[in-house]
């Protein structure tokens, strides 16, 4: 079937908690999202078969649409060429724990980090980075590889033509560990070698028949350049062949995904969810030529994606915080952030023991959702910390190549950055996209905006957006089969602009004005708004509405043009409006006094209309 003849597309994403299905159809000359369904993921008992959740999520679309999408004769999605069911079915997955990898490199901050980026970019969770200089003794490394039982190992190290000793030593360690995969006792663990090409034979001799060895091009052929694609592609390939095929029900699901082309069935591989989302974010940044960050907060993991410049070139980075999430990993957010940090976002007083029990109960029943307002507010407080910690981890890994000698001119003398500095620059960020259940399904979009601002603390002028119903994974995998449909649905139905956020950064004097925003409104009138210290303001400005504006910061403060310099440009609204955030950056602090903190949180929530007014009476009121 040619691309233009495709009229009906079904896509699913099997998350760790929920399986989401969407129906896309060709209507009125373009592709639009028509329906959405969801059901609990069924990797766990009693079903222990991921396809049950898929059938259920697609069944919901059947119910709502009143048409047949499931096969009568056998389990599966009905894909045909004759108009029955859909024309294409594709899927992503992060269920089954996703893809868990150990990576190895000679120098931890160089090839080790490059290997980590290759694995993360392919959608993996990196459980351990083994390096010659990681401080562990060889037998400790052996023990760790054995204990973690990764799905796959990526071994790199050495530039082409460099010394071989260390990378061969790493191969020795892997061999000594004799690692066994998580799933299945009888098959060999896949190991990808992407290191010094001269060491290939020695590595192959070392590893011998103990593992399933794949050799690809060196991911760091010279110090100054990474070549991650061959390793990433092979990770995808092995993920499908080895890991997915072992998880409950996936062998069946892999047969369902595809389409007919000229009467012949063409299988469409299942993509790891983060790989699909990353692909879409990279495409957006490229098409619009902007700096973009995306965050996808799931049940088990939180992924952060970014495209920032490094030496004038856009660089895509993805990190996964493997144990930060809103259901399976919710307790780990508490353990990592600390109770105090979670509680600081709760805009009412509550007992710590009670909060602990509530968080644990969410952990043990991860698929439940907050029915009461109080529980919703608590979950959103946890989300803020999960997002904040995920950003911290992203900053640490989204860095320039380390170990590279930098050429400097006299002009650089006052603007020196060391090699390996983070590429994440919140002031340069143009677009911040939130995705994942807690952000996409927040009852009010202003809750999404509020969570994104509190956790990421965007600086200067930043557009906030949300994946409307959490369908970026679906569109990512669809873009492999039908790029036009993916782009049209992304523009029309997926990306919802919340509005610009304006936040001056720099040393703040308490109580004073931080900036003045002078706007020429769509009707030609002018309006001036002050951004005052410790105050948040919401200016009504709808979707597609734009104002030309001048932002004049107070002395020493920066809104994008440098300290004290006026910013001139266009501010755009969205479903939330224009947010003016005067709470300060570098540093951002909440009041230490508990009573004042609650007062301020309530004031900001009221300003942004974050919660219905009755939230003020929760936890015993003010």
């Amino acid at each position, binding site marked *: 079937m040619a691309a233009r003849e495709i009229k009906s597309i079904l896509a699913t994403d099997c998350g760790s908690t929920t399986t989401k299905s969407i129906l896309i159809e060709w209507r009125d000359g373009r592709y639009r999202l028509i329906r959405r369904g969801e059901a609990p993921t069924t990797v766990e008992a009693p079903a222990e078969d991921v396809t049950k959740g898929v059938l259920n999520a697609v069944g919901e679309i059947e119910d709502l649409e009143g048409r047949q999408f499931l096969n009568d004769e056998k389990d599966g999605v009905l894909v045909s060429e004759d108009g029955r069911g859909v024309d294409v079915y594709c899927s992503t997955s992060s269920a089954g724990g996703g893809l868990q990898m150990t990576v190895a490199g000679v120098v931890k901050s160089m090839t080790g980090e490059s290997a980590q980026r290759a694995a993360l970019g392919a959608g993996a969770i990196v459980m351990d980075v083994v390096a010659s200089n990681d401080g562990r003794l060889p037998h400790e490394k*052996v023990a760790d590889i054995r204990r973690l039982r990764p799905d796959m190992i990526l071994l790199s190290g050495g530039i082409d033509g460099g010394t071989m000793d260390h990378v061969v030593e790493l191969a020795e360690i892997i061999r000594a560990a004799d690692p066994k995969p998580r799933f299945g006792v009888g098959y060999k663990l896949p190991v990808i070698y992407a290191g010094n090409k001269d060491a290939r034979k020695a590595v192959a001799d070392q590893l011998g028949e103990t593992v399933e060895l794949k050799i690809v091009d060196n991911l760091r052929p010279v110090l100054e350049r990474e070549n991650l694609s061959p390793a990433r592609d092979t990770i995808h390939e092995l993920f499908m062949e080895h890991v997915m095929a072992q998880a409950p029900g996936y062998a069946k699901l892999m047969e369902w995904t595809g389409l007919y082309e000229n009467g012949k069935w063409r299988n469409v591989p299942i993509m790891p969810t983060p790989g699909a989302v990353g692909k879409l974010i990279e495409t957006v940044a490229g098409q619009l030529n902007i700096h973009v960050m995306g965050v996808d907060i799931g049940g088990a993991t939180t992924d952060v994606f970014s495209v920032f410049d490094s030496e004038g070139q856009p660089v895509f980075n993805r990190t996964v915080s493997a144990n930060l999430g809103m259901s399976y990993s919710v307790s780990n957010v508490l353990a990592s952030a600390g109770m105090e940090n979670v509680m600081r976002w709760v805009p009412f007083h509550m007992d710590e023991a009670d909060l602990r029990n509530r968080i644990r109960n969410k952990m043990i029943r991860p698929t439940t959702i907050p*029915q009461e307002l109080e529980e919703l507010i608590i979950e959103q407080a946890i989300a803020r910390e999960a997002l904040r910690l995920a950003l911290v981890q992203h900053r640490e890994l989204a860095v320039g190549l380390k170990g590279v000698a930098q050429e400097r001119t006299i002009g650089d003398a006052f603007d020196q950055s060391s090699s390996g500095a983070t590429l994440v620059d919140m002031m340069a960020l143009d677009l911040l996209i939130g995705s994942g259940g807690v952000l996409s399904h927040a009852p009010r979009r202003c809750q999404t905006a509020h969570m994104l601002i509190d956790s990421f603390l965007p600086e200067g002028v930043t557009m906030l957006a949300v994946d409307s119903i959490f369908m970026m994974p679906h569109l990512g995998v669809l873009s492999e089969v039908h790029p036009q449909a993916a782009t049209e649905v992304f523009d029309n139905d997926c990306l919802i602009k919340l509005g610009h956020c304006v936040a001056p950064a720099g040393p703040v004097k308490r109580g004073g004005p931080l900036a003045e925003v002078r706007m020429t409104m769509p009707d030609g009138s002018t309006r001036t708004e002050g951004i005052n210290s410790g105050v948040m303001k919401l200016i009504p400005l709808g979707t597609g509405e734009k104002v030309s504006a001048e932002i004049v910061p107070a002395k020493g403060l920066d809104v994008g043009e440098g300290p004290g310099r006026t910013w001139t440009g266009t501010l755009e609204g969205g479903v939330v409006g224009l947010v003016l955030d005067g709470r300060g950056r570098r540093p951002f602090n909440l009041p230490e006094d508990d009573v004042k903190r609650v007062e301020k949180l309530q004031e900001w929530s009221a300003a942004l209309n974050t919660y219905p007014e009755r939230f003020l009476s929760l936890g015993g009121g003010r």
Partner: protein
Amino acid sequence: MAFAYTPGLRVAAVADILKTRRLPLKGQVLVKKGDIVSADTVVARTELPGNVKMLNIANILGVPSQDIYELLHVKEGDPIEEKGVLAQSKGLFGRFFRNTVRSPITGFFETFNEITGQAVLREPPIPVQIDAYVNGTVDEVLPEEGVVISTHCTFVQGIFGIGGEVRGELRTIVDSPDQEVMPDRITPECAGKILVGGSYISNATLRRAIAQGVRAVVVGGFDDKDLKDLLGYDLGVAITGHEKKGITLILTEGFGRMTMAHGTFDLLKSREGMMASVNGATQIRAGVMRPEVVIPLPASMIEKVDQTHQAGAMDLGSFIRCIRAPHFGKLGKVTALPPELKVVDSEAKVRVLEVEFEEGGRAIVPRANVELIEK
């Protein structure tokens, strides 16, 4: 197609359960299909490769790697003794200032790499054996991997637990499922037993149970702050079972003070004095594992297993239990499964069901906030 799959914990008076007992590595299966086994019968065993020590002989001797082979006193695969000589340098005139490399372990000289100069020494294999865990019959032999044991039993799944597999006699120490376990009920007679409590156990009482030699406690709820105190750390990801706290703890309801479901309590109480196999291991992520109480039934109690239970399928008339506030713990019957989304108190638009509670009254509840129960 108005039904949904909903995860639910199994609480069955009579069930045929299969337990897979698998070795971590290939090994030897010691029983055959059809054999009757008791919980402590060893069904399979293997040997895990011993721990590894790596020794850079070239560095120690100060000799280039490629020259080491002729200095080795052992070959790859040879057994080695602790302090035994592995290699020796030639020294001066073959006699003076000779450097010697001695083995730090007893085991085997596994490999030597002439590129890195590194030797891999391996300790002797570690024997591992697995038992049947429950009384039953060998249903299937997994060649070289293990067995599947079938048992006719009473089966109760908990929601969360800590501690591994233990066995013991069941003893109920509260009068009703809403009662807290009080310290004075933990008597010396509780040693070696599996205790069934009610709604709650405090950390102090649990510690008393440990001191008295209780094998396991099955109870409705426990405080998270007490869990932190007991473990000595804040549990991050819910993967448990390896804790060595001298007791296995199984929560049937969750964290906090929570009345044990009446059905669960009554069932466990009806099995008073019987031997149970208990496992606290919980994994709340891929391949979810819940803690369990397995009570094999003697031949005199063989009953027909109710085959009407359809795993995970919820339909009109299904019996459910609410598992989140504000109706936590309430039992009822599904009276409607509307396909469209409904707005709940949090303002979220979610898929819901209508439930008629056993205690009277109806409510709209998110579908995600109920679990199926067998009735």
